[in-house]
């Protein structure tokens, strides 16, 4: 292998196609398919008394109407609990169509199938559902108070209560014994993934072949396949799931099977017609998934240098109406909260609570932004209390490079021990100090103040467990044309895998990246995979591609050695520039394309090249199985830990309270970098979402459980004009856990953004921020508090 491409900032192979509008997204497919639309609950909590569809039957083009009563056994059952956990004592999952009760606005009640989506919506509008409203539980406060229950049989609205300690002593005792103590009450509001393309499903039943083909805009085609097969009672071998181009996922599309992923294929089988459902934006707001909403109470004990002796954290996590994805988000919050720090004795307890709102599942960052917010607010509070520099307090608590691997003494979201494999956190903070101009900032502040301007600086650091198991796989094949086809089992939603995975394969096979084609998310091509989420793709799939391509390279050497003859040993050969050649004598070589031809001994010559592989050709057989191809898997032992630090300078208008980001800096360590351009793009996108979460985005429910800003007009995703220029610096501490030394990069940018921006606003304003996001109007109100205090 070579490392010609690894680390190169290649432009993305996929972009010309996507930027020219040549992408094929779910709704670009199946023009002749029937269309599904749903009657969704307009109320947050109710019993369904009656469903009257009679008025809809007059709509021309109506094909079918389904309610829960129409569903066969397996489909009528609640959807699966995807990630069980012993602490999740009261899991609840939704039905495909509501079974007598609705628990949030947007829950699907009736499915309508018509000849097009317009008519399906016309029919849906005419269906009258009679509800007996029940008192809704909205917000963490109401859920904790438990005066009303979301699920009658779930006492206290508590889905799960979980405690972890790090085995470094009793946290409460350590806090009590510490020279100084602080308590912080924090809150983070709801946001959501909001991919530009919503979910969508297209299903085709082949009655002759008895096969079902499902296209879904998902982050996991292989798992959707198994779920659909199980629910529909089909052998998995009769079900194919294909992801077309996917217009973003950000976590929400890892949840599966969505009701629509079961109902649409079932309708296609039942009706014998292609059926499609393309989610619209309002549906996405009210019936997909949200994240982030938490309350936190932090007690911390520390000494005069700011060093932590003990930390106790209580988290109240709003999980919405259902828990199909288990308690992954609060587990991640409570473990990744620790960041790059040694906190002394640690105890964390979370309570995961039901509310009559859309369910909560991972959104990019997946609980980490909340955890980092808790830790970094605490660091700033300690610095303020002691009158110390905020970076100095952080530095006093850092895990040192020589302490790696560092066992945090907790169990991570993959069920494995939370052991940081590598990292250099002191260097990371030194780099962010320099990059953001920390040391010169007081002069900058004074200069701004002289002009009547108010500026502040903030910083936040994080550690992110990435590349978790159980595994990923890939198939690599060299065609006789010289084209290399990499079939990765996982899906892609725009991360640049067609480029990065090609770089890895090209290096293994000594070919040009241009000659490598990557396909993803198609179970016809590759059946065993987990999915693209949790910053795991490049670690797991990247290494799997390297394994598979490495096997192909070894096979190519064996076939080439037999073809070259003359006593050449496979071990003396190397793959370079499309050739298999002798490493010492480059005149001894054979074209990789020829090796591909020879790898498939032929009876019949159907073109010029194929002649060489036929029986009367002079080349001796290598005795290998046919095909210059191989399958490879990578199964990580546990997660590998990336890290980073963000520094930000903000300006706040002394009069209008407008908040502007002047400078945004990122130091980022994701181990060995396959493609720095793509990593930077990932970081930029993450920071953009982080800025959204810090200053703009919030999901707003009213007391009745109505989602009042379910559109892009009122749910404020930052535009290009709101996203700052981002300065990025990479550092590399290679992972020792995988052959390529990689760590994940997908979520990084979003993780510390709210914490860093809160820190900067606090610094500019000299007031206390305990809750994010923050708007100018809220900053104005906070200022009033300061004036009156």
């Amino acid at each position, binding site marked *: 292998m070579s490392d010609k491409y690894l680390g190169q900032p290649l432009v993305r192979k996929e972009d010309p196609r996507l930027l020219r509008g040549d992408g094929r997204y779910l709704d670009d497919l199946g023009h002749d398919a029937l269309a599904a639309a749903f009657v969704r609950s307009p109320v947050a909590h109710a019993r369904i008394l009656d469903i009257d569809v009679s008025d809809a039957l007059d709509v021309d083009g109506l094909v079918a109407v389904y309610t829960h009563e129409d569903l066969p056994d397996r489909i009528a059952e609640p959807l699966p609990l995807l990630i069980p956990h012993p602490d999740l004592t009261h899991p609840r999952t939704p039905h495909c169509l509501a079974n007598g009760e609705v628990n949030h606005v947007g829950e699907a009640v009736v499915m309508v199938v018509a000849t097009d*989506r*317009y008519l399906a*919506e*016309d029919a849906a*509008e005419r269906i009258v559902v009679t509800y007996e409203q029940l008192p809704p539980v909205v917000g963490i406060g109401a859920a904790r108070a438990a005066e009303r229950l979301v699920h009658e049989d779930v006492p206290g609205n508590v889905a799960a209560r979980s405690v972890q300690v790090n085995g470094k002593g009793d946290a409460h005792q350590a806090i009590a014994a510490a020279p100084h103590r602080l308590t912080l009450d924090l809150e983070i509001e709801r946001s959501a993934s909001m991919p530009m393309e919503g979910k969508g499903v297209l299903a085709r039943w082949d009655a002759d072949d008895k096969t079902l083909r499902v296209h879904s805009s998902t982050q996991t085609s292989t798992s959707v396949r198994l779920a659909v097969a199980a629910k529909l009672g089909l052998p998995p071998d009769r079900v194919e799931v294909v992801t077309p181009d996917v217009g973003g996922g950000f976590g929400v599309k890892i949840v599966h099977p969505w009701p629509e992923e079961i109902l649409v294929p079932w309708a296609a089988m039942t009706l014998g017609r292609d059926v499609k459902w393309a989610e*619209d*934006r*309002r549906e996405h707001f009210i019936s997909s998934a949200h994240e982030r909403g938490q309350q936190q109470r932090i007690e911390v004990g520390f000494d005069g240098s700011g060093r932590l002796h003990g930390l106790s954290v209580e988290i109240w996590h709003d999980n919405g109406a259902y828990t199909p994805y288990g308690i992954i988000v609060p587990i991640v919050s409570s473990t990744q909260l620790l960041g790059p720090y040694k906190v002394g004795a640690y105890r964390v307890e979370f309570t995961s609570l039901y509310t009559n709102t859309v369910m909560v599942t991972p959104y990019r960052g997946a609980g980490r932004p909340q955890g980092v917010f808790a830790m970094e607010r605490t660091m700033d509070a300690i610095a303020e209390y002691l009158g110390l520099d905020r970076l100095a307090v952080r530095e006093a608590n850092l895990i040192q490079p020589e302490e790696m691997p560092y066992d945090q003494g907790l169990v991570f979201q993959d069920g494995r021990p939370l052991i940081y494999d590598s990292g250099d956190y002191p260097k990371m903070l030194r780099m962010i100090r320099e990059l953001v101009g920390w040391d010169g900032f007081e002069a900058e502040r004074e200069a701004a103040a002289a002009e009547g301007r108010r500026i502040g600086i903030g910083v936040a650091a994080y550690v992110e467990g990435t590349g978790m198991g159980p595994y990923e796989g890939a198939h690599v094949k060299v065609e006789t044309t010289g084209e290399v086809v990499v079939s990765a089992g996982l899906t892609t939603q725009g991360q640049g895998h067609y480029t990065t995975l090609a770089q890895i394969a090209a290096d293994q096979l000594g070919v040009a990246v241009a000659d490598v084609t990557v396909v993803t998310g198609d179970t016809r091509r590759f059946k065993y995979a987990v999915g693209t989420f949790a910053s795991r793709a490049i670690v797991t799939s990247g290494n799997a591609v390297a394994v598979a391509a490495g096997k192909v390279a070894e096979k190519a050497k064996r076939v080439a050695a037999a073809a070259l003859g003359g006593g050449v040993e496979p071990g003396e050969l190397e793959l370079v520039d499309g050739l298999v050649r002798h490493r010492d004598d480059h005149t001894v070589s054979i074209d990789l394309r020829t090796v591909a031809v020879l790898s498939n001994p032929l009876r019949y010559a159907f073109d010029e090249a194929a002649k060489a592989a036929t029986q009367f050709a002079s080349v001796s057989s290598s005795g290998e199985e046919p095909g210059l191809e191989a399958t490879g898997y990578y199964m990580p032992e546990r997660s590998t830990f990336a890290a980073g630090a963000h520094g930000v300078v903000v300006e706040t208008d002394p*009069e*209008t*309270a*407008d908040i502007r980001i002047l400078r945004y800096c990122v130091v980022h360590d994701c181990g060995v970098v396959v493609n720095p351009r793509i990593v930077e793009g990932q970081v930029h996108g993450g920071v953009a979402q982080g800025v959204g979460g810090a200053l*703009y985005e*919030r999901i*707003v429910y009213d007391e009745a459980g109505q989602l*009042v*800003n379910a*559109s892009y007009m*009122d749910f*404020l995703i*930052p*535009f290009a*004009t*709101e996203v700052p220029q981002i300065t990025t610096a990479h550092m590399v501490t290679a992972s020792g856990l995988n052959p390529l030394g990689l760590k994940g990069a997908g979520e990084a940018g979003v993780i510390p953004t709210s914490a860093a921006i809160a820190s900067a606003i606090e610094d500019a304003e000299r007031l206390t921020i305990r809750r994010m996001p923050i*708007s*100018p*109007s809220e900053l*104005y*109100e906070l200022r009033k508090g300061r004036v009156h205090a």
Partner: protein
Amino acid sequence: MKPPPVVYHGPDTVAEAVRLLAEHGAEAKVLAGGQSLVPMLNMRLTAPARLVDVNRLDELAYVRTDLHGVRVGALARHADVERATHAFEAIPLLRQAVRTVAHPTIRNRGTTVGSLVHADPCGEMPAVLALLDGEVTLRSERDGERIVAARDFFVGPMESACREDEIAVEAYFPRPRGRTGSDWREVSRRNGDYALCGVGTLVRVDEVGAVVGATAVYIAMGPVPQVVDVTEAVAGADIASGVAWAAAGQIAADRLEPEDDIHAGADYRRHLARVLTARSLQAAYEAVAP
């Protein structure tokens, strides 16, 4: 998010359009730029039985400037108003304000007269019409043309004096009298969003540059554009100190009754009105100051 069934009419002349409205007005909506109507249709927030599309009425696609002011036809896009140099030279406020209407792609399609009829209390152009004391020409089969002054045209939130059987064919923005400076500014959550508070101002000075009159208009601060005369605070006042501008801001803030919504509290909006008024008046004054 698909609109309900609707009968589409695409008249080629204004006469045909008003005839269609005479016949179907009660169940019809006029479609111009469609930047508000089409999303409302898609979300099924409105369900007219018929649409009368005026996009073929090329005779109404004009922005004309004369000695008295600027006349904007019903099919002139916001972008046409923005780009018309003659209109800017006659009334700088037009361009100052229209540039803050949403984003360029929306301005390319949305019409100025359409936004007047839509009468969104957050809309910039209704406020400009109100501040300039302009008027709207309405045409119907029954009454022919009638002219309604801005103060009578904006009846309530999303409600104008344009009847079901009428088409608003033209808006007239008169030139401000004398030496008058203008300014438009707003605070919005994101670039191009509806303003949390927007203010437009006119400051008139005499031959020696003394302030003789000042008015301000506000969007997002009440059910219709709110015009406030702040002359008492600034006429003959000591301008240099800025105290007069601040006093004017206080007068306006006291008069306005904004409401809370998810983006901003009422107190904050009132505070913005105070701050923006002072800043805006000063900028308007500086445009004509000696």
